[in-house]
């Protein structure tokens, strides 16, 4: 494409001011009166303005008839309806917006009270409520102050068993944990369960235990086992009698008789 600088001096000097452009586009500049270099442009623009095919008004009758119908019966009703509709729409939007704001406030306050908001949001809500005398935990008020502290308690406490667990749990939850405070401890519970079972504690032997527990019903089994094993099964019973098993009361808190 030819660069503007390659054009003759006459063209390069040619500058159009806004007024001339407006007159050219409005067809007010005859080609002969146009600025140098723009006479053909003026001719082209006039030709475009005269762009007619002679059939633009071919459907005038039908178009006017339809327009009359539209104007006479459609417009006033639809206009007032539109206005009413727009008004209702505005009211509806306001209601919905209000509900959203209230919902957001209630929801965020509840979350803040529970202390589960992100740190920044939690601090902000906490500060606001502090000013009106309501205490909301801040982000630094997390119950477990640090893992090291909890770990320290776990490794240095003198407590054992349930008491130790309860102490650690209480430290980790900032005193909110109720572990170990309800119900009997596992050992106690196991003892109760053991008492309920019809076997002596400590147990004196597998066969004897089975015999006692089954109310003598296990005799047949013992005998059968003894017969089938050529007397070897009594060895086990004997061993059991020598070293009676210690019931794992911690693992089985409550013993249930069959």
């Amino acid at each position, binding site marked *: 494409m030819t660069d503007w600088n390659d*054009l003759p001096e006459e*063209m390069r000097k040619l500058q159009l001011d806004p007024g001339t452009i407006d007159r*050219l586009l409005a067809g007010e500049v005859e080609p002969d009166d146009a600025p140098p270099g*723009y006479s053909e442009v003026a001719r082209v623009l006039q030709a475009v*303005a005269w*762009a007619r095919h002679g059939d*633009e008004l071919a459907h*005038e009758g039908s178009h006017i008839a339809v327009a009359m119908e539209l104007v006479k019966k459609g417009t006033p009703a639809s206009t007032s309806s539109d206005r009413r509709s727009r008004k209702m729409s505005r009211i509806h939007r306001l209601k919905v917006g209000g509900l959203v704001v209230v919902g957001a406030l209630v929801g965020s306050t509840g979350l803040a009270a529970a202390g589960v908001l992100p740190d920044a949001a939690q601090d902000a809500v906490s500060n606001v409520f502090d000013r009106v005398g309501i205490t909301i935990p801040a982000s630094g008020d997390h119950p477990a102050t640090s893992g090291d502290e909890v770990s320290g308690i776990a490794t240095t406490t003198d407590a054992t068993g349930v008491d130790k667990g309860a102490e650690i749990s209480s430290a980790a939850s900032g005193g909110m944990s109720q572990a170990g405070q309800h119900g009997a401890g596992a050992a106690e519970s196991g003892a109760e369960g053991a008492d309920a079972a019809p076997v002596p504690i400590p147990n004196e032997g597998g066969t004897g235990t089975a015999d006692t527990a089954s109310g003598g019903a296990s005799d047949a089994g013992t005998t059968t086992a003894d017969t089938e094993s050529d007397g070897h099964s009594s060895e086990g019973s004997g061993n059991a009698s020598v070293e009676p098993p210690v019931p794992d009361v911690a693992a089985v808190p409550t013993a249930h008789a069959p």
Partner: protein
Amino acid sequence: MCRRFGDSLLAWRAVASDPDFQAVLGAARGGEGWALAELYRALYPRIVRYLRVVEPTEAEDLASDTWLDLAHGLERFRGDEAGLRAFAFTIAQRRLLDLRRRRSRRRTEPRELRGLIQGAPIGDVEEEALSSLGTDWAITLITSSLTAEQADVVLLRVIGDLDVEAVAKIIGKRPGTVRVLHHRALRRLARILHREGVTR
């Protein structure tokens, strides 16, 4: 305002002064046939011509829809005759955009609008320029040698007889941008015509 473009502009002389225009507008709002006909003859040919250039295959349907929308919106319109013309072209432009949006949703093959102008002497501008400066050739020159935005601005200003502010509102640009666009368009036309040897 220039009144020498097209016979249809004669219709505007009947509604040239603002009181007359307001009287015609008021009667048209009341459904008076003669008043609607005045407005139709003044507006419709321009709209059809513009749409035939930018969307030849759908121009008639778009123009009809535009006219009916305009009739429907007369009750709400407030302004003078230039404002009504801008209102009409705004509706036409929206109809045009709707059509193109629907067309893109249907995923039809895009067609080169500039190639659809009937009798367009594309590719042989020099010969046509020397032999004729007819309307079709002039439109083809504008649509094929200018950018789409430049062509749109020139066509709206010339065919629509719209001022810079009205064109800016219709195409959604600032008035300054419109001025830059048609300034560049005219300079480009001048360069092309000079290069093709038709400049005297």
